């Protein structure tokens, strides 16, 4: 058992890191606009494909690929907000309408991607070559980088939303839109900012994921379901709760795969989510309403 447990925990840590990056992007939009962006996974996919084109097809290197991938995701994210979310502000069914419009955006992006890039599998090169030892388990340096990078990005995000005025304006708009407007905060611009930042996180996650898994049109959609479990599990709200939930789900998923196999793991994760919500309706780390 010992020989398997440590590598499993490390792979859980890696999963948790990826979920944390995805879920923090989802929760950024949720806390600011009260909207769930179902196109988040497609933005990850777009980032990975653009990065592949720039880095491999044009041969400009992985660094340029990262910049282009994240940039493309930001542009697409801001456009989604502008065209598919903004027209419905103030509508009393805004949340339901945007479920449909962002799902539509996700489908359009995914189909568009498979039309442009075709069905052949692609893969991005790793950011770092070689292996490192983590708790005695060998891990590729690329995966170790993700494990280190995720908490760093989360900390930066926490600092941004807590310490800077522009970050605080995101929280203010999320908590009381009209009061924020009356303090001179440009609410529509804040919405764009939230979508742009969230899309940047999606692009970054997509590019990182593109060298662990094959880049396919479904690259982002599969982990998105688990990232949504994470956001709800954590209690739809604070960044800390989302990050905590990401690691709990990541480790749980890795252990479940070890104990039960791939087949049953998604079902058990959903059962765990339902149980948590039955006993703690505000999520694992959520505050009582």
């Amino acid at each position, binding site marked *: 058992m010992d020989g398997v447990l440590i590598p499993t925990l490390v792979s859980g840590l890696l999963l948790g890191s990826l979920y944390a990056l995805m879920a923090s992007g989802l929760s950024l939009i949720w806390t600011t606009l009260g909207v769930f962006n179902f196109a988040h996974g497609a933005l990850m996919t777009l980032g990975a494909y653009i990065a592949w084109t720039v880095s491999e097809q044009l041969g400009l290197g992985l660094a340029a690929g990262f910049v282009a991938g994240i940039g493309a995701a930001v542009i697409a994210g801001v456009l989604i907000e502008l065209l598919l979310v903004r027209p419905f502000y103030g509508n009393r069914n805004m949340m339901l309408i945007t479920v449909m419009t962002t799902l539509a955006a996700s489908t359009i992006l995914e189909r568009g991607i498979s039309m442009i890039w075709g069905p052949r599998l692609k893969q991005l090169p790793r950011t770092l070559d070689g292996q490192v030892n983590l708790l005695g388990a060998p891990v590729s340096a690329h995966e170790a980088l993700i494990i280190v990078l995720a908490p760093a990005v989360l900390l930066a995000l926490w600092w941004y939303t807590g310490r800077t*005025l522009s970050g*605080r304006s995101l929280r203010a708009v999320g908590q009381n839109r009209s009061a924020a407007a*009356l303090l*001179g*905060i440009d609410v529509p*611009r804040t919405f764009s900012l939230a979508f742009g930042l969230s899309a940047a996180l999606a692009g970054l996650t997509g590019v990182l994921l593109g060298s662990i898994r094959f880049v396919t049109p479904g690259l982002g959609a599969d982990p998105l379901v688990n990232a949504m479990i994470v956001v709800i599990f954590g209690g739809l709200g604070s960044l800390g709760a989302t990050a905590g939930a990401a690691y709990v789900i990541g480790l749980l998923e890795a252990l479940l795969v070890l104990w039960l196999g791939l087949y049953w793991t998604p079902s058990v994760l959903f059962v765990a989510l339902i149980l948590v919500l039955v006993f703690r309706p505000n999520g694992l780390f959520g505050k009582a309403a």
Partner: protein
Amino acid sequence: MTRLLEVTGLHAGYSAVPVLHGIDLHLDAGEAIGLFGPNGHGKTTLLHTVSGLLKPTKGSVRFDGQDITGAKPSAIVAAGLVQAQQGNTLFGDMGVQETLELAAFNPRGRSGAQTRLDEVHALFPRLAERRRQRARTLSGGERQMLSIGCALMCNPRLLILDEPTLGLSPRLKGELREAIAEIARKGVPLIVVEQDVEFLLALSSRLYLVEQGEVARMIDRADAPDHKEIMDMYFGEQAH
């Protein structure tokens, strides 16, 4: 005296329900005016329309010679017209100090924010004591102080206060009214909505009675009516 605010023939409402039916009012530079009248007759709707939260269906709002009809709330604050909302809960999860600093985020509030923060602390020492406390844990009076403090952080050229003492104890009412009078003495033009007409008469040069979405009457302090007359305006003659 130059006109600071001029509202002409303002119509507004919520989707299909019109609330304002042609409001006319004005405010001169250096003046304070009061609005009163029964609840649900359009005072808050009027203020929301002036601040840009609601788009008017007809009529115009001019601020300092500039047409701000239907402008974005952020642009209106940037021009210097600032409102502290009624029953304001602000941002429940944010600390007092954090909120005050955020209120100076707009282009207008940014320069001289530190000086203004000191002024707000001098006006409301309790906000200085509760720097790190979250807004949701504040008492009603403290929240109101924070709300007015935030409006002051925006460096207003005209400050609108919508029922600043609503639901407070008599002692706190007195404390807040003293602070509002202090703001007026510093020369900040004010529009105050209050139910206590005597307080408004002491504070402002003119009063507007808003009834059924219209200005039913304008009262100049110079020829102010007596208490009974004002009660009649409120409740109708037959109520006595």
